[in-house]
């Protein structure tokens, strides 16, 4: 077909978490520029399967940029060189014919490789479970518009809520820090009235779990913000720090006993 591309792929192959991996070079031929990056990998995998080789393992699910399942560190960028998109929304027209593309898994001790390009991101689930929720009593549901919320606050909370938890921030950060993810979750819940009762306990338990998982610290380089497919803002990190320090240093943490 006219206008199709031939590419060279350098792909990280690793059998499982226990073995060490290596790069393997593959040819991706007759690739339509209209394919998504994952569809291109599907074509390569089909070829591998036909030859009787093990297909390249990579994470994917919705393929419409909202589930946060796809990953891939492509040519030095999490989710590839295009801003504000996930790998499934990255099209092959972003690359040029004859290009060599290096594909690596997310690199972080908290994200161990499961196989090839797939990593275990359950550390994010555990951070979320530590406090990333709002406790609501059961009973009659209240009218959603009963509590007035300023537009700015609602917008900030909703912008942070667009985080899909893909882990690109960790992959992009030179310290493999999860601060952008955790701060997005803390902001999304902490700004809205429904999240207020647990605001200060939430930030403490989520940060504690984040440290527990072995993510690095934040140097405020802003690489996470630049690479985030949902363009989550760095200001969330400052907001989380503010909540964390005021919780730790100034808030009432328990009921007073007789002596104090």
């Amino acid at each position, binding site marked *: 077909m006219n206008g199709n591309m031939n590419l060279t792929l350098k792909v990280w192959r690793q059998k499982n978490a226990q073995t060490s991996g290596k790069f393997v070079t593959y040819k991706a031929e007759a690739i339509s520029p209209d394919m998504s990056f994952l569809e291109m990998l599907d074509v390569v995998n089909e070829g591998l399967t036909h030859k009787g080789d093990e297909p390249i393992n990579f994470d994917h699910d919705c393929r419409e940029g909202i589930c946060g399942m796809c990953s891939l560190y492509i040519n030095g960028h999490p989710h590839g060189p295009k801003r504000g998109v996930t790998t499934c929304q990255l099209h092959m027209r972003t690359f040029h014919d004859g290009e060599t593309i290096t594909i690596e898994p997310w*690199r972080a001790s908290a994200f161990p490789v499961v196989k090839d390009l797939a990593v275990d991101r359950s550390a994010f689930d555990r951070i979320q479970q530590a406090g990333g929720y709002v406790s609501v009593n059961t009973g009659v549901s209240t009218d959603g518009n009963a509590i007035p919320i300023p537009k700015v606050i609602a917008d900030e909370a909703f912008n942070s809520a667009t985080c899909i938890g893909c882990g690109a921030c960790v992959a992009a950060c*030179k310290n493999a820090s999860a601060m952008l993810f955790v701060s997005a979750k803390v902001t999304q819940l902490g700004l809205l009235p429904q999240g207020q009762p647990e605001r200060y306990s939430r930030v403490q338990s989520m*940060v504690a779990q984040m440290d527990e998982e072995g993510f*690095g610290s934040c140097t405020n*380089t802003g690489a996470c913000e630049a690479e985030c497919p949902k363009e989550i803002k760095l200001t969330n990190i*400052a907001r989380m720090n*503010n909540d964390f320090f005021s919780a730790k240093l100034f808030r009432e943490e328990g009921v007073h006993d007789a002596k104090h």
Partner: protein
Amino acid sequence: MSEIKQTFNSSLGKKLIMALTGLFLCTFIIVHVGGNLLLFSNDNGFGFNVYANFLTHFPPIEVIAYILYLSIVVHALYALIITVKNRKSRPVGYAVQPKADASWSSKNMGLLGSILFLFIVIHMGDFWFKYHNDKQMGFKEYRTDLATGKTTDAVYTPVQEDFSHSVSVENNVEIVRVKDLHARVVVAFSQWWYVLFYVIAMGALSFHLLHGFQSAFRTLGWVHRKYTPIVYAIGTWFFAVIIPLLFAAMPVYYFFMHKG
């Protein structure tokens, strides 16, 4: 007590210590550059030597000086601890270096800080240590005719062993006898390689503060749509341009002035 320990042992707590010590060191260099402007006064070190004498004999300043030394050590030590932890967060690196949009200085704070630490050790060894311990460091006597305001200077050899400084007025002539740190400055800044080292170190200071000053505010959680641009402007123009330029001008000025 254990709760406070827990706070400062968390990843955010360690960054809080970095931010607070860093900002304290920022306030120090304002005073340091201000006082050292006396080096430009062309009075054979009269103002500078009296200022150096004041700094070392005024008790509150001596107390602050020890807090300062502690801050430098803590800032460097925590930087090391955090860096080791961050490296552990990504045991396997990427084949393609991250290309995310992040400033050079933000990614090289450790390198810049190491240059500055080396500089501080050499700088303090040459001036602070010699001022406090070197029996060879001479004294100078400044005689100011109070009627005409004219000052003459001469080398002074103390009579007593433990002489530190004196101010007296005889026949309408004010006599000030102080340690001649200025002579040490003249000698040090007459070597081209020493001047070059100082200029390089001030370049490192510039890039360190270009990121560090505003990053400290982010770590503390003080980010605001209205005030953050002001913090950026101060961090860039005052801390990363004006202060390093003034500091670097001192050795350069002495090198060329005392040459011809």
